């Protein structure tokens, strides 16, 4: 008898008993939609690049990230991170600092000199991109990767659009922007600067372009009629920010009033403080609850001594002072005048009331329709003019760099399909993001959020240096590992362990598992004990 010590029966003899026959439901590994990815206007696969970063594979993480967005270092500074607002971890302790990890990866790529992946073999197609802002650059990058020849025309001297002219250096240092844009030139995108396109069809014909993307942004500052004296100074926020970005230091006086409640207003007020204003006051006609500015920008502004006058409009601008009218909210939440007035000292008024699209180019494109001041586009981002697409601030959208980058990517995909004479890819079926209740959070370690260092408030108003610092490697790794990996397996082996029937198999070489349906009785323990909700129980066909 050739059997192991003290054993008389054949071992493993129960394996002949296929208990999987008992099953009425089977576990299936799924990949759910993480809420961060769902919320990202640029369409970043946040969970996927965090997963790579979790084991210190920063270059893989960066490479996954730049598939969707070529500007991680810029994004890690200027994005208002709706991903973090959506993050399920906020219900556990606090949201994962996705934006700070993104910046860490972006900065790491700059330090290490990582290059974008090479372009696909040339397709022989040529695409004209009008506007070198975030939308145009994002589209140019994606189109170039697909092997198309891309020419970006822009009236300015340097590419970057609002990233260069609208965002102050204390939020986005220009060397960071320059390096990330230079990677696109290395990839083979052709930049034609100081080249304002005035007749789109003519430029396309002359250059032999097969398609075009209009990404001209919204550059015209909205004005408001303000009764103003001869000596009063009324400026618009974009030109103030633009001239500071060009290295000028326009004198605004000691008391500066900014009119408006958006992010541009915050940037303008913070810039005024740095230009020497002792008092920078934002005048906004509604309350904080209705303010369009990002909460973080508001907090930074307040930390730098910016004052806010809620529920006020400017009635008249005099020399060295303004007249404000107090407002009140009606039942519909709209501001209504009260007839009460007050004086406010102010040497200059900076208007930050929003921006409009310059129509001069648009009117030359036959078939293109402008509705409510913005370009009408279909689901594939094509205008009424075949082969002419549009994106960014010039189409109906929430206006942010992140949205524009997302537009650029979507437009590029659609343009690629159009060039290949294919239907645009079907709109992805809208899936619901994985809810917090879909997770088994017992398993996650407690871990408070890491906070990025900030320049001391006292030192901010005399420098245009960057306010928010980056995370060091240990802290970035810690922050990446706070990710709950919602809906996507992260290799914790729980399913492998909790199966009473040993019916979960770990596949070689990767953190992937399979179910041995010969023995799985369908109890559902693996699904219930999966921390991230990546296993679904599916009824067997009877």
């Amino acid at each position, binding site marked *: 008898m050739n059997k192991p010590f003290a054993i008389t029966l054949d071992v493993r003899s129960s394996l002949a008993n296929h208990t999987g026959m008992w099953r009425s439901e089977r576990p299936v590994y799924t990949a759910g939609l993480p809420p961060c990815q769902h919320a990202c206007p640029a369409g970043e696969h946040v969970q996927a690049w965090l997963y790579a970063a979790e084991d210190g594979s920063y270059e893989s993480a960066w490479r996954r990230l730049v598939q969707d967005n070529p500007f991680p270092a810029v994004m890690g500074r200027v994005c208002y991170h709706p991903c973090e607002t959506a993050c399920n971890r906020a219900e556990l302790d606090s949201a994962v600092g996705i934006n700070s990890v993104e910046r860490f990866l972006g900065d790491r790529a700059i330090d290490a000199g990582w290059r974008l992946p090479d372009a696909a073999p040339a397709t022989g197609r040529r695409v004209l991109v009008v506007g070198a802002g975030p939308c145009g650059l994002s589209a140019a990058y994606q189109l170039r990767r697909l092997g198309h020849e891309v020419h970006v025309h822009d009236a300015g001297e340097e590419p970057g659009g609002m990233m260069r002219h609208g965002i102050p250096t204390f939020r986005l240092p220009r060397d960071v922007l320059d390096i990330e844009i230079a990677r696109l030139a290395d990839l083979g995108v052709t930049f034609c600067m100081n080249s304002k396109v005035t007749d789109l069809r003519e430029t396309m014909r002359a250059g032999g372009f097969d398609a075009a993307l209009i990404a001209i942004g919204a550059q015209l500052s909205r004005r408001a009629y303000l009764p103003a004296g001869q000596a009063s100074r009324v400026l618009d926020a974009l030109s103030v920010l633009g001239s500071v970005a060009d290295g000028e230091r326009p004198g605004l006086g000691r008391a500066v009033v900014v009119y408006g409640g958006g992010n541009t207003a915050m940037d303008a007020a913070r810039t005024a403080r740095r230009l020497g204003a002792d008092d920078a006051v934002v005048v906004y006609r509604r309350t904080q609850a209705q303010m369009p500015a990002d909460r973080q920008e508001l907090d930074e502004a307040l930390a730098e001594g910016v004052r806010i006058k809620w529920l006020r409009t400017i009635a008249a601008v005099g020399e060295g002072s303004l007249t404000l009218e107090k407002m009140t909210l009606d039942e519909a939440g709209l501001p209504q005048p009260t007839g009460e007035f007050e004086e406010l000292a102010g040497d200059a008024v900076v208007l930050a009331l929003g921006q409009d699209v310059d129509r001069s180019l648009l009117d030359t494109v036959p078939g293109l329709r402008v509705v409510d001041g913005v370009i009408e586009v279909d689901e594939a981002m094509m205008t009424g003019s075949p082969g002419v697409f549009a994106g960014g601030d010039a189409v109906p959208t929430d206006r942010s760099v992140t949205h524009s980058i997302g537009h650029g990517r979507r437009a590029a995909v659609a343009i690629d399909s159009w060039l290949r004479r294919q239907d645009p890819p079907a709109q992805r079926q809208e899936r619901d993001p994985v809810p917090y209740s879909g997770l088994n959070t017992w398993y996650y370690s407690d871990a408070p959020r890491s906070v990025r260092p900030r320049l001391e408030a006292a030192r901010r108003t005399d420098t245009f240096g960057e306010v928010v610092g980056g*995370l060091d490697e240990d802290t970035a790794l810690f922050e990446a590992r706070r990710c709950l990996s919602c809906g996507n397996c992260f290799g914790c082996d729980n399913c492998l362990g909790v199966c009473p029937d040993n019916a979960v198999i770990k596949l070689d070489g990767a953190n992937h598992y399979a179910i041995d349906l010969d023995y799985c009785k369908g109890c559902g323990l693996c699904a219930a004990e999966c921390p991230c909700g990546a296993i679904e129980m599916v009824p067997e066909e009877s």
Partner: protein
Amino acid sequence: MTQTAKFYQVGSRAVGNRLLPLDQRTEQANPERRNALTSGHRACQGCGEALAARYVLDAAAHAVGGRLVTVNATGCLEVFSTPYPESAWQLPWLHSVFANAASVASGVAAGLRTTGRGDIRVLAQGGDGGTVDIGFACLSGMFERNDDVLYVCYDNQAYMNTGVQRSGATPGGARTATTEAVGAEPGNLFGIGKDAARIAIAHDIPYVATATVAELHDLEAKVRKAMSIRGARYLHVLVPCPLGWGSATSETVRLARLAQRSGLFPVIEAEGGVVTSALPIRGRVPVEEYLRPQRRYAHLFRGEGRPDLVARVQRLADQNIVRYGLLDEES
């Protein structure tokens, strides 16, 4: 800013995790684990006992390099794993009768010692019926003689194999086939039954511990520690039973976790008659959260319910928390 503490996303709670160094993962995360109780056994869906038996025996076999013999009392575990001539065991396994697993194990240990094979270790196992009631005299004798056996009791709190009859481990208020949910005090009586772990501690044996199927790292550490000690050792593992408790098959691990988090099942360790550690409660829950998903307690919540009886169960949990200081480190 530097984080000095190592942080691994799920760290010490999940079974494994790709980020953890290999030596910090559980034996169950090892793709090469022994699977001492292999597939094809006939335990019910979601069986806590089948799960615990594999956890315990894989860890014990690993700890002693595979030189392990196990003796089984009669009960579910024996019946579902070995309908003749089939066996789901991948190690030497011996069954005699209901009452005598501890005695047989003592004899196997003695036999191995006298034949010069003292390197082979003995592990006895049984359910709560075979341990707390039927085999109790044999177990106490094994403790008294300090025989070199680790006895493991898989406690699912009733005789599940024969149709869910009450055992000495059935908790107060629980319905079984022999303690029906009728009368003024429905379900099992309060104040009767045995706390086997405390009785084992009272024998002053080298090592006694309790554990659940919900805390795998803790369970495996206790098995390893037990196998590093010679003499009589006792491990009492709570194993929810979907059939007898009337719970969903997917809830087995969660219920074990809730039993610990409510304080109803204290997870402790004792050496030489002295309690040396207790697993602190992380996120305390009221006992109701543990009782409600189980049909054996449904009569406590039907209609107007029996808040008085729920309160009695809560008092038992509170008593455990005080006795073992379960909230000392974290509350």
